[in-house]
């Protein structure tokens, strides 16, 4: 690695660390929010228990597996979905701060992605893990089985899930170069991940048409795939699908970033 690239990467690391520090200031409030998020999880668990009670397993999902599935989705969503960084990037374009971002001797994408990563790493430690502990205590959410070989699938899958979610979020921010309001995009992304990403119901339980659509979209990388691997469903082919989506979305983001630079039309300031 040449010294210039090393310096750049170190700057991105500092940017991610600052993002973590900023969030650490609010960890008290975030802990309250964790309980509220857990309530959402308990709600969905109650719904699934109500519809599956005293029924035989469907597509391999019994009441208990669905309970774990929903609990894990609530945890993974914090590293893939629940983060408004993208909207904040768009806000910087609206208020003119993006002009400063564009002048920095750093890549726009690298700068924002490192900040988004910072938020997500913080979320993993202060949101996902505490939530997993709450669910562990309340519904007996187990540690992943299958030993080291399974962990070698789960860890990269959760990292790829984080990357896909971060890139989708960054793409929302980039949309700010073309549209004034991006709140609706964030809302839509959240809905798509919850629905088509299998965070509310696993892909196997979707109607055939819906499942076919969900299977060709990237949103399952943010919920269904990482959670399925944790629960021992699926193998290395899942990881390959996730990797392909991560690469494709990163490429798209890099290409759009180059186009956005040419289009930069900062309002306000």
């Amino acid at each position: 690695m040449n010294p210039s690239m090393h310096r750049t990467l170190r700057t991105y690391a500092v940017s991610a660390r600052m993002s973590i520090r900023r969030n650490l200031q609010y960890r008290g409030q975030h802990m309250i929010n964790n309980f509220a998020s857990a309530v959402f999880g308990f709600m969905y668990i109650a719904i699934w228990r109500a519809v599956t009670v005293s029924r035989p397993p469907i597509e391999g999902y019994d009441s208990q597996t669905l309970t774990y599935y929903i609990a894990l989705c609530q945890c993974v969503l914090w590293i893939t979905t629940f983060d408004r960084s993208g909207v904040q990037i768009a806000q910087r374009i609206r208020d003119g701060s993006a002009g400063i971002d564009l002048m920095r001797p750093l890549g726009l994408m690298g700068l924002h992605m490192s900040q988004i990563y910072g938020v997500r790493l913080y979320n993993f430690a202060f949101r996902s893990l505490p939530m997993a502990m709450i669910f562990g205590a309340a519904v007996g959410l187990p540690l992943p089985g299958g030993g080291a070989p399974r962990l070698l699938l789960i860890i990269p899958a959760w990292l790829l899930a984080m990357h896909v979610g971060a890139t989708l979020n960054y793409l929302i921010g980039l949309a700010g170069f073309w549209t004034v309001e991006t709140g609706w995009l964030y809302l839509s992304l959240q809905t798509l991940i919850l629905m088509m990403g299998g965070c509310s119901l696993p892909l196997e339980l979707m109607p055939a048409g819906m499942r076919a659509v969900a299977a060709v979209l990237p949103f399952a990388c943010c919920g269904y795939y990482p959670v399925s691997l944790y629960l021992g469903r699926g193998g290395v082919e899942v990881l390959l699908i996730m990797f392909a989506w991560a690469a494709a979305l990163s490429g798209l983001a890099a290409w759009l970033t180059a186009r956005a630079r040419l289009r930069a039309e900062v309002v306000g300031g």
Partner: protein
Amino acid sequence: MRRTALDFWRVFWFLAAKGMRERMQYKASFLLTVLFRTLSTTMDFVLIAVILARFRFIDGWDVFEVALLYGPVTLARSIFDAFARELERFEHYLVSGDYDGILVRPWPTVFALLARKVDVTRIGMALQGLVLIAIGASQALPAGTLSPAGLAYLVLVLPLLGAMILTAISMATAAIGFWVIRIDDLYVFTMYAPLSAAVFPLSIYPGWLRGLLHTVIPVAFAGYLPVLFLLGKGGSGWVLVASPAVALISLWLAHRLWLTGERQYHSTGS
């Protein structure tokens, strides 16, 4: 000078109309927001429909009965979001010191705060609520499980009561902000989670959650309890009287808390 209700009405609409005009300046953005907000809430119900298409019942409620529960709550939420959403942004007023500007207005502070924004982008959500009630009623009326009077209650009365209860919960949460400042995360606990829970039969939830939704965060009176009775699934007719009482008492208590909290307010300074 004593102000009449008409004065309040005039000022509210004057300020609200200005807010609406401001919102309509970006027409494409406005239309996209309406469209995607509506799609987002529609997807929520599609999810329930998908689950119930496979499993048929949730604790004895079919998809049409759930639509009759989902519809009024969605309508209530759209009314609340349209007229009282500014309460949910109250942390911003406290952190930025913008509340100073509200305090110096010659109007009650809650009124001045709410009049700052009327969000017409919620119209899609309101229509969705009405459509869901129509879908549910298309089965319940011919089957005789819902009377025309019951339907009128679901369309005309319950959404207003629901909006009042949501406003009360939101006002109480915002009032807590006078002491703790940061309340955005508290809203998830007091508003968003209970609202999502309220569109399902509350009998499916564990006892502690059910208790919470019947008392401290009384969204049960904004949907489940009245609908349960109107569909002949249980409960007593008293709930139709109890719901307005709960809405009024909640609003009164929330306003008392607001006034008490307001005395604790410290500006951020300049």
